[in-house]
């Protein structure tokens, strides 16, 4: 007598369970469908090429012949002995120093001044940010014009009686690199002003009030409250400068293309010449691997810091 009473219940329960499982799998399927377009694009055009650049760097290949010639780490050995590679690496570091000056020093000064009780703060911030949204080709063209022998910089120098300093800046072996890096600084410092300003506004105001009660002056509060409070943001600004410095390509390609001689050669321009223009896919990829490892490292630290800052 008890069995028939139990049976429908039992079947109902298993039926309920199986429908719930299928419902759950339907929900999973929908989630996968939602992700699929992004995943497909990302795997095909980002992830696979990223893995492939490491593989390519171990071969010698002109891109046309059906067989690639296995090289092991020969490309990297060649790279370490390649004086142009080291010159490019040094140039990236010089670029970095100039960019750090603009993004950290100039950025901090501007943000500190803007965080005071300033009239027209919105206008200043807007103006500083305007170069950030410009195309790199625009930055390159404008600054090439400024640096021309008859350009704005030389005219200004002449007007203030420093005519002896005039030169064709981008044709000058010593000055071409820092001159272009200044253009990159111009195009990026507005970003760090905004980041640093936001960081300053996030510092607990009561710390400043307490310091004022204790008789601290502006320099002291800046040194002991503002800077420590900004530690995370400053680190991010520095990392962004590092990532940007090692990716430097557009402004140089649109102006000097690495010249005069190799004075403005960068890792990215050297890789572009070898890999894309001279069809040395293996060797170009080896340069790209070095580039990738450096930037991946900085970018990973950046993300970890940000994630921590968000908590």
């Amino acid at each position, binding site marked *: 007598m008890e069995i028939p009473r139990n049976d429908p219940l039992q079947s109902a329960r298993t039926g309920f369970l199986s429908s719930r499982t299928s419902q759950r799998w339907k929900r999973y399927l929908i989630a996968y469908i939602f992700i699929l377009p992004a995943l497909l694009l990302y795997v095909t055009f980002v992830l696979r*090429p*990223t893995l492939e650049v490491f593989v390519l760097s171990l071969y010698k290949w002109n891109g046309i012949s059906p067989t690639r010639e296995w090289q092991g780490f020969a490309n990297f050995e060649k790279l370490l002995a390649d004086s142009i590679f080291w010159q490019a690496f040094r140039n990236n570091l010089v670029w970095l120093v100039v960019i750090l000056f603009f993004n950290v020093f100039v950025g901090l000064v501007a943000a500190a001044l803007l965080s005071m009780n300033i009239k027209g703060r919105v206008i200043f911030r807007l*103006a500083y940010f305007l170069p950030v949204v410009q195309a790199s080709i625009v930055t390159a063209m404008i600054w090439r014009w400024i640096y021309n022998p008859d350009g704005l910089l030389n005219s200004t120098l002449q007007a203030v009686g420093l005519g002896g300093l005039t030169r064709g800046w981008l044709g000058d072996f010593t000055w071409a690199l820092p001159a272009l890096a200044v253009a990159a600084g111009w195009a990026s410092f507005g*970003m760090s002003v905004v980041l640093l300003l936001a960081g300053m506004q996030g510092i607990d105001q009561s710390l400043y009030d307490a310091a004022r009660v204790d008789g601290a002056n502006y320099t002291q509060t800046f040194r002991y409250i503002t800077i420590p409070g900004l530690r995370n943001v400053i680190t991010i600004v520095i990392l962004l400068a590092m990532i940007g410095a090692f990716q430097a390509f557009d402004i140089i*390609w649109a102006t000097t293309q690495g010249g005069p001689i190799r004075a403005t050669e960068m890792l990215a321009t050297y890789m572009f010449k070898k890999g894309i223009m001279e069809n040395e896919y293996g060797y170009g990829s080896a340069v790209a691997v070095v580039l990738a490892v450096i930037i991946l490292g900085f970018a990973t630290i950046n993300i970890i810091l940000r994630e921590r800052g968000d908590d």
Partner: protein
Amino acid sequence: MTDPQFDARRSATQQSADRVRKVMGQALVYAVLIMLLLFAVIPLILAWFTAFKTSQEVLFNPYGPPIPPHLDNLINAWVQGRFSVYFNNSLIISVADVTLMLIVAPLAGYAFARMRFPGQRPLLVLFLIGLTIPVGAIIIPLYLTMRDFRMINTHGAVILADVALAAPIFIFIMRAAFKDLPGELEDAARIDGANEFKIFWYVMLPLVTPALLTVALLEFLWSWNDLLLPLVFLTSDDLRTMPVGMLFYRGRFSVDYGLMSAGVLIISLPVIVMFLFFQRSFVKGLTGGALKG
């Protein structure tokens, strides 16, 4: 012991000294800020001025405002400089990029924010890696991939690569936006019998329009300004975007400052107009998205 009169006198002189110091400090602050403002803006304004000058004026009045303004350079750049063609190509790529991104990123971001499924964590980490990969470093295999797909010299190559490369950052932006929405909405819609897609489309998506705007603006900005991908993928001059077109005619544009400035103006005007309209979204998106490698 204290002389009240002396104290009063001292504090009075001190006050006026303080005031002088304060005014001078203020003047210094504004001087530095204005110098930086000129540094940021003068190169742009000079280029915009030059765009409206004849070659005579460029020589004899290189830095003054163009009075009266001439449109010759803009017309020259547009017609002989082929900016009409380049502008079209830039527009096609940017609009396609934005459209595709507005489909791809919200879908994935929504799944990561509001659904539970096996493999969620690893997939999220996979996209997180994408935030650190620089375009420059993978351009060689990316070029080979496009060659294998026979897509070299098509706008499609630039569009697909643009969207794929920027997808991770926008997925994270959309994920954050969807995460902030209350769960009750979703539950209510589900009880009313709406399916997952309807919930996404009719209930959740309208609530994240600010994030969608950020995605659209940034994707437009990046694709509009991009140099490397169109440079590598587009070999025919009829398909080139404005930055690449300008790069290839660098010789011609560099001799003729008026023409060069006209090109600069045509490239940057749409961006600047958008920037002035949506300043807040731009700044927030760019600084929030500044972690993009």
